[in-house]
């Protein structure tokens, strides 16, 4: 991560920082593409929800956080895990369900956890992580720690009762939570206007008196700047903040989704404005990075992914005798 980030709410777009942002996004993109491939090979099973198209959000927001802040995400959380700094090896091994996976293999793609990074999971219940985030922030407040808890969720989650209850609790108790709504305009196959009477999601924050803002989630610079401002507010003790990042999912909801609900053209149109293609184009145009830098990033990433796959392949399966482990501390 870049230096001085808590002081500055506007990151300086140095060459190093641009390289970092681009590399993180490409890492996630290539990792997800690899996972799709591994899914068809039946190496990865269960549901698999790719983050492709939404990388700017996790990368931009994560850069605004400190090491001891907490992060909660959804079933679409591999990107967040990587952006948060979880070793790709462990994330990939978890996708396989292997013993060396970040959750020891028991969680799979929807339940990636890392206590050391305060990455509090992967949660496969839509909206289910929101009350947890409130509670983690409450613990920080009661223990006098100036940490921020960031909770990512989709716009579909905004319809759930748990969203409403969490928004109210967080504001009522002035808790240090950063709510990041990844609005990709679809919840599975349900378009936003079929699920919300008020489609301007961030506007909902007003009815809890929570400050909020909507940004272009395809623009990593904008996301990062907004996240830094938001985190600064939250860390200052002014209570929670709601950040809506407008984005788009380029792939199917999960590997089972035939995408009957949207046209290929719609997807193509959006892909043109994708976070990577845009940022990459801009840094090249601006002469901040050069094609050789990008090639280097891609090469790096390819190597990292190959290593992760090799690591996952080599890792052992948990012994069946351990089946009942981790149900409780006392067996």
């Amino acid at each position: 991560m870049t230096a001085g980030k808590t002081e500055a709410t506007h990151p300086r777009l140095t060459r190093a920082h641009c390289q970092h942002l681009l590399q993180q996004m490409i890492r996630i993109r290539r990792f997800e593409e690899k996972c799709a491939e591994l899914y068809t090979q039946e190496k990865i099973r269960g549901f698999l929800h790719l983050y492709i198209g939404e990388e700017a959000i996790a990368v931009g927001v994560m850069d605004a956080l400190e090491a001891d802040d907490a992060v909660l995400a959804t079933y679409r959380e591999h990107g967040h895990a990587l952006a948060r700094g979880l070793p790709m090896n462990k994330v990939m091994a978890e996708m396989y369900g292997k013993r060396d996976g970040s959750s020891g293999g028991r969680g799979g793609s929807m339940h990636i956890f890392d206590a050391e990074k305060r990455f509090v999971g992967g949660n496969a219940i839509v909206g289910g992580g929101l009350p947890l985030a409130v509670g983690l922030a409450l613990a920080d407040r009661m223990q006098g720690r100036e940490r921020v808890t960031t909770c990512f969720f989709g716009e579909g989650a905004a319809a759930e009762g748990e969203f409403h209850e969490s928004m109210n609790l967080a504001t009522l108790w002035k808790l240090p939570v950063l709510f990041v709504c990844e609005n990709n305009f679809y919840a599975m196959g349900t378009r936003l206007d079929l699920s919300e009477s008020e489609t301007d999601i961030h506007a909902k924050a007003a009815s809890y008196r929570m400050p909020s803002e909507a940004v272009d989630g395809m623009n990593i610079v904008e996301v990062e700047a907004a996240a830094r401002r938001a985190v600064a507010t939250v860390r200052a003790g002014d209570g929670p903040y709601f950040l809506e990042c407008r984005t788009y999912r380029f792939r199917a909801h999960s590997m089972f989704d035939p995408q009957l609900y949207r046209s290929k053209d719609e997807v193509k149109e959006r892909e043109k404005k994708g976070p990577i293609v845009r940022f990459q184009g801009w840094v090249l145009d601006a002469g901040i990075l050069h094609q050789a830098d990008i090639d280097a990033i891609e090469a790096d990433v390819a190597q990292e992914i190959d290593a992760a796959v090799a690591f996952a392949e080599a890792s052992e399966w948990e012994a069946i005798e351990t089946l009942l482990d981790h149900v409780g501390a006392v067996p």
Partner: protein
Amino acid sequence: MSEEITYREAAGAAIHDAMAADPRVFIMGEDVGHYGGTYAVTKGLLETFGPERVRDTPLSESGFTGAGIGAAMGGMRPIVEIMTVNFSLLALDQIVNNAATLRHMSGGQFNVPVVIRMATGAGRQLAAQHSHSLENWYAHVPGLRVLAPATVQDVYSMLAPALEDPDPVILFEHVMLYNRKGTLDRSAAVDLRSAAIRREGRDITLISYGGSLWKTLEAAALLAEDGIEAEVVDLRVLRPLDADTFLSSVRKTRRAVIVDEGWRTGSLAAEISAQIMEEVFWELDAPVGRVCSAEVPIPYPRHLEEAALPQVPAIIAAARAALGKQGEPA
């Protein structure tokens, strides 16, 4: 007039035919429309019946389930789809405190003719938050009828009488059944009271339902190779239980094993075992056995998931134990 189709297709056909037959019937739930249904059961219905009757809902399990209950009280015949039983935890207040009790609380003035469908069970490596089998929670609640069709015929034929039931019906579809093929006769009727004998036998009664039925039948076939003739009872209706059918069978065979994907402690299998104890204790030649899920949130990797769920070898072992063909059950 019978056709060979999948359980998924039969479930979809049942909804289609019910909607075609009665304008009061409609389906609502997450992604039943434009997406085509999480498990593709409702695919094509939107095109046929339009968005009013194939109603995509927001992610609001309590809200839309309650709305289904209200619509039923208002004269409609809603089919509410809760994607999976795992998410039904968010709708339990409406199901238990409203649907199951409104008739009683109102002294019989109001009734709730709603059908709530949900996928249940494990086997798709969906891990701890997507693999519950909470059938016994629902079977515990007076005021609900609980169905668990295991066959293509049942998943088709149970829907129409469920919609005719003036009271709330919960209908479980095991996720591992959707791709299963079977024979459907659309004109055949089933009642919502009776368990079914899926295989006759004299040596032992194996009692199961839903996704586990097929493992149980497989076990019975393997036992038959060793000369053990197991009778297999498919409960089909989990509330109210058709005790007559399983008790008569156990009276005949004098031995029983129950196979139930619920976690062992507090399972529906325990209820069946207790009823056998109460009613045919003196005729039993061996303690009734249970094959249930291990007491662990379902893990993701296939080998651990398989180890957590009831499987054919365990059913065979339990049957053999009940028959005294080997030592005590493990």
